[in-house]
């Protein structure tokens, strides 16, 4: 197997900004993992505005005769009530009820939806689509995307000359000083996304970078974005759960990922029965670890008994400690519950126990947006 | 034909070097003393002595070699201030200055002398200060002195600036910077000294400090030490971490297992040893520049006795406020002449005034210095400038200010070197810069312990 760099449309600009030359793979692409340090980039997303390349997100267009039936069957919320220009967040589940993926379903036109997701699931969704004579068009490489996150995102978008009056989960195609772009508000952390043609990407980056200077704009890499996800309590397929890589799983249930709100009980989507079945209840919540060392995917104990396990874990510079998403038996998931876990050891040292405390998600609420 | 093998070689003919040579020769070692200068001692030296190891004086029978005191226990005078052994005179002087200080001074002096006495075994026999057992109150005082600057300490105890400045001089005199933390301990060291039988006293030898050098030299040569002047040393010869000899600048090599060096420790280790002999890390440390300062001695020959406002036998100090020390040392460190240095004036003879000037940077301006000093004295003794017949300047030897470690460390750590057979006996082998000869006595004893005959 060979490793090769798969550039996003913004790669040239990102390479200039990525002075530490730290890269990571995400989806099909090679992206900067950090530009100026995770803490600084995450701080920009809370104090000012951060700019992240999100071209790696998987985007597919669904079009065809029985589109309505497919989308109702596939997604945990029915997107057919949407007007063009609107979107919703939904899951798709395995037959046994396990979450395969989560994404934003946007209605482009009466007969056209586009799914934007953090994890590819082309084989599964493609097979489903073919049953309903729906075609699946991969558009991932047709556009580059820049996310603008932070309290000054709205002001920045207005300063760019784009109309910032856009509701969350809405989008709009606009002509912007000679470029055709789409402005969306699909992100988990508030903010805006600008999608453009690959050839226009460097120009878009430059425009944003120049206009962002007064707002202390900071490019943010994958590590900082992962930290923001974690602090916001957002689990991601591929990172926090298997999703599409487990063919027909009963786990994880949406509730165990704190995604139950994305399930609409009234319509019969794939896996609905099982998702509602009475299974041992686990809950996704936050864990504050009394240490600087993160403990991902570690069992957590209450009085010596395992009561759950952590998912992603990172050091949070804001909380000045390691934090983790944790799936706990519901009985032990009350905020304040004192638990313990074993920290991973390094360089041959003995593993250490650390105390931890359950807390509500999100760990840190997002900052209020400063209106334009 | 000079010999090429000795039991011991001493480098440098200061108090430390001469004392070491005399003690070694007396102990029966075949000893050579080498001195860079063409003559054994110049014509200029400080006038007073505040620290001569009494045991050394006894061992070498210096009195038999013509050493004696002209005046003992000199009072310290400053404008409007007289500190002398006569308690009543001191109290009267202080009372007119600042009544509360008279009582405070008595208490302070008693505390300092008592603690100094307790610490004398450490400083005299080479133990580390921390190993001395003390009463709890003494320990508290010592703890405080080790972290305080002399000036802060004195400011906390006394109210009069003149008294603070006068007492701070003791710290400056032994090479500490009185405004720096730890220099308060130097006050204690000064109080521990014994000159002429009195603790903490300053005396005037007959013939000045030169007479001491002569007596030591007589003692050394009488005991059989060989002396070569105008003989600079190029480097030390070593093998396997031990000294094996000395190479002279003239090219000649002399074998010896023991070298006593009266030069500065840094200078010795950095320049007289083969490169990196002590390790690359040590070499790097030694190569770092150090701010060196020192004091200069100016000898004024006068046409008549000067009109100083002090008893004729007193040391007269010109340092009116304690802040003077800080600014003067800062200027010296910056390589400039201090606008207002600290002066100690001693009348060696009625018309011969020996002035020590603190502090002086290595790159000081000579002519300015003489002028500044003359004008400063003129302010206190009107007509002084007109009395000056000549002013001779003893080139200052500058050293790094005495760090606290030296005052606290054991003698062994100051005298011994990483190189076997090499012992330091110069001024910086003493706890503080002083002409006591004690380092030489301890070094010879250490060498005899390491290599009994």
């Amino acid at each position, binding site marked *: 197997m060979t490793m090769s760099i798969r550039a996003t449309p913004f790669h040239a600009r990102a390479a200039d900004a990525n002075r530490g030359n730290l890269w990571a793979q995400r989806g099909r692409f090679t992206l900067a993992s950090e530009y100026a340090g995770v803490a600084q980039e995450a701080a920009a997303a809370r104090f000012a505005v951060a700019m992240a390349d999100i071209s790696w997100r998987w985007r597919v267009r669904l079009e065809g005769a029985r589109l309505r039936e497919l989308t109702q069957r596939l997604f945990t919320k029915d997107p057919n009530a949407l007007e063009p220009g609107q979107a919703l967040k939904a899951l798709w589940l395995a037959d046994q009820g396990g979450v395969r993926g989560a994404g934003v379903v946007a209605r482009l036109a009466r007969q056209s939806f586009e799914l934007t997701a953090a994890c590819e699931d082309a084989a599964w969704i493609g097979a489903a689509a073919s049953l309903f004579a729906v075609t699946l068009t991969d558009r991932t490489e047709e556009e580059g995307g820049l996310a603008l996150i932070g309290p000054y995102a709205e002001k920045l978008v207005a300063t760019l000359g784009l109309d910032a009056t856009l509701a969350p989960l809405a989008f709009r195609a606009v002509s912007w000083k000679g470029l055709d772009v789409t402005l969306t508000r699909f992100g988990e952390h508030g903010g805006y996304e600008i999608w453009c043609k690959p050839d226009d990407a460097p120009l878009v980056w430059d425009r944003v970078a120049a206009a962002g200077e007064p707002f202390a704009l900071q490019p943010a890499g994958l590590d900082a974005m992962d930290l923001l996800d974690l602090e916001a309590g957002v689990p991601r397929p591929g990172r926090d759960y298997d999703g599409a890589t487990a063919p027909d799983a009963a786990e994880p249930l949406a509730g165990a990922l704190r995604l139950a709100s994305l399930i609409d009980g009234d319509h019969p989507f794939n896996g609905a029965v099982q998702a509602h079945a009475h299974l041992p209840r686990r809950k996704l919540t936050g864990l504050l670890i009394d240490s600087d060392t993160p403990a991902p995917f570690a069992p957590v104990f209450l009085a010596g008994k395992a009561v759950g396990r952590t998912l992603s874990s990172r050091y949070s510079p804001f909380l000045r400690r390691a934090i983790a998403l944790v799936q706990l038996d519901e009985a032990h998931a009350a905020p304040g519950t004192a638990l313990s876990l074993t920290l991973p050891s390094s360089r041959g040292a003995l593993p250490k126990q650390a105390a931890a405390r359950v807390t509500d998600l999100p760990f840190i609420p997002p900052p209020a947006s400063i209106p334009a | 034909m000079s010999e090429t093998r000795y039991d011991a070689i001493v480098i440098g003919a200061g108090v430390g070097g001469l004392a070491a040579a005399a003690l070694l020769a007396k102990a029966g070692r075949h000893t050579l003393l080498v001195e860079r200068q063409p003559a054994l001692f110049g014509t200029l030296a400080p006038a007073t002595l505040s620290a001569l190891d009494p045991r050394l004086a006894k061992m070498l029978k210096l009195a038999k070699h013509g050493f004696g005191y002209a005046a003992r226990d000199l009072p310290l005078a400053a404008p409007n201030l007289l500190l002398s052994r006569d308690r009543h005179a001191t109290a009267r002087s202080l009372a007119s200055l600042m009544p509360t200080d008279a009582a405070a001074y008595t208490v302070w002096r008693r505390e300092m002398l008592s603690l100094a006495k307790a610490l004398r075994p450490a400083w005299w026999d080479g133990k580390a200060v921390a190993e001395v057992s003390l009463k709890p109150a003494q320990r508290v005082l010592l703890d405080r002195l080790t972290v305080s600057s002399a000036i802060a300490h004195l400011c906390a105890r006394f109210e009069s600036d003149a008294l603070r400045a006068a007492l701070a001089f003791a710290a400056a005199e032994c090479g500490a910077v009185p405004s720096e*933390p730890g220099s308060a301990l130097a006050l204690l060291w000064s109080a521990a000294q014994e000159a002429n039988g009195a603790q903490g006293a300053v005396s005037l030898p007959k013939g000045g400090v030169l007479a001491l050098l002569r007596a030591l030299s007589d003692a050394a040569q009488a005991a059989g030490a060989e002396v070569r002047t105008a003989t600079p040393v190029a480097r030390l010869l070593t093998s396997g971490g031990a000294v094996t000899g000395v190479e002279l600048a003239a090219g000649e090599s002399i074998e010896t297992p023991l070298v006593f060096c009266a030069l500065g420790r840094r200078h010795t280790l950095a320049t007289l040893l083969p490169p990196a002999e002590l390790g690359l890390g040590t070499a790097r440390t030694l190569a770092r520049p150090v701010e060196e300062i020192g004091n200069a001695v100016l000898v004024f020959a006068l046409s008549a006795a000067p009109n100083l406002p002090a008893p004729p036998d007193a040391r007269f100090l010109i340092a009116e406020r304690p802040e003077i020390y800080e600014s003067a040392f800062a200027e010296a460190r910056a390589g400039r002449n201090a606008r207002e240095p600290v002066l100690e004036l001693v009348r060696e003879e009625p018309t011969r005034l020996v002035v020590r000037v603190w502090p002086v940077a290595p790159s000081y301006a000579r002519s300015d210095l003489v002028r500044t000093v003359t004008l400063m004295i003129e302010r206190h003794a009107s007509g002084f400038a007109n009395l000056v017949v000549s002013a001779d300047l003893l080139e200052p030897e500058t050293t790094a200010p005495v760090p606290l470690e030296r005052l606290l460390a054991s003698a062994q750590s100051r005298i011994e070197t990483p190189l076997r057979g090499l012992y330091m006996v110069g001024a910086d082998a003493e706890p503080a810069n002083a002409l006591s000869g004690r380092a030489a006595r301890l070094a010879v004893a250490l060498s005899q312990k390491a290599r009994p005959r």
Partner: protein
Amino acid sequence: MTDRYDAAIIGAGADGLTAAALLARAGQRVVVLERRAEPGGRLVTREFHPGFRAAPFADALPPVPDDLFRRLDLARHGAWRAPAADAVALWPDRFAVVPRRFEAEAEARRAAALAHAALPEPPAPPRWNILAKPAADIWPADDWTRASLADLAEADAPLLLDAPALDPFAPGTALRLLSKPEDGPWRGGLGGLGAALLAAAREAGAQIACNREVGDIRSENGRVTALATAEGGDIAARAVLSTLDLKRTFLSLFPWSALPSATVKQIGAFRMQGSTARLLCALSVRPRSPLLAALPRGAVHVMPDARALVDAHAAWRAGIISEKLPLTLRFPSRVDPGLAPTGGAVMTVSIGAVPHTLFDGVWTNEKRNLLTARALDAIEQVFPGIGATIVGLELLTPPDIEQQLGATAGDLDGGEIAPDQMFAFRPGLSRKSPRTPVQGLYLAGPSSAAGPLGTCAAGAIAADALLADLRGGTLP
């Protein structure tokens, strides 16, 4: 105010609010009395020119210890911190990024020192002799305490400091590094941290009373009984926690006869001397340096030079406004754009070696203008054209800082940082620091042992001691 409080706290700054939060959370009845209209002490961000906000006294303080930060749940209360950025030394023709090689070491030492400051009882005097003990025995018994900055860092140590008044060649100056590395910048400036602490204290149930100046600490038989406020009326309390500095606490809040005379004398000899002035500048555009690609996020030391520091220090000692001033610039709006209007920028200047008392009298307008002009001239050399973009200025001289912050002589460090003034050598503390010779009086604030080492730390240490005594029954 009816009956007695368990604890009355003087000053609603970092230490006062921390102590209030911890004590109230432990179920004690707590009141905090603040002289000014706003709580926060130096943790305030205020508008100094319309649309421009800055923390007037400092931009960065020593870190809030991590465990304390977690214990107070400050992130939840909105205290968000960006990482400290590299400092830059800037000359008209060159620049250098200040090496951070001491930071890890300083961090470890600071933590060790804090652990010491928190000791319920300092070690017996022989063990507490921090300089005479062999290295590695107890902190900080090694060369750090007596090293000079120049020793420690060879050439660049002076660059590590914000505009100090010190001779970097003098032994003991390395102790300054203990209040490094700095914490923040905080969202909303230091006021962001202050607001979070206030929220934590209020949530815990502490009562915060502003515009209440304490006039006297009343004591009977060597035991604290109440606080007398300047407005009249006593506030009875079982214990008093003062976050004022030593001199204010003991010399202005007590009749001297109420204290042991040795204590009064020692506190009188404690050296406190302000040396920092602050210049807050509102800029209409973001400044540019021809040398730097972007405006630095961290401190910018303007033409730092060890020799100039020595001269400035000498001038400071003599009460003169130095020709060359140590200047450290910061651009808080570079990290938090909310501190300036869009397009503008906030620049704060810490001017070092500024005397509290001038040799020839008080700070007149001419003197203030001279200081401002000298500082701006130097800044103009590294940021050409910046002078023309200044739309608002506020100068705080050491007397202003004294008046506004209540810091004796405008000393922001709570006393000269020197080995004989640190740790157990701080006067006014009993052997069981942070307790004092007056029963029921606890000292937090800048002059306490932990004061210069960490933000909020002294407050937590005093609160813990007070709580132990309340529970242990040593306080009636």
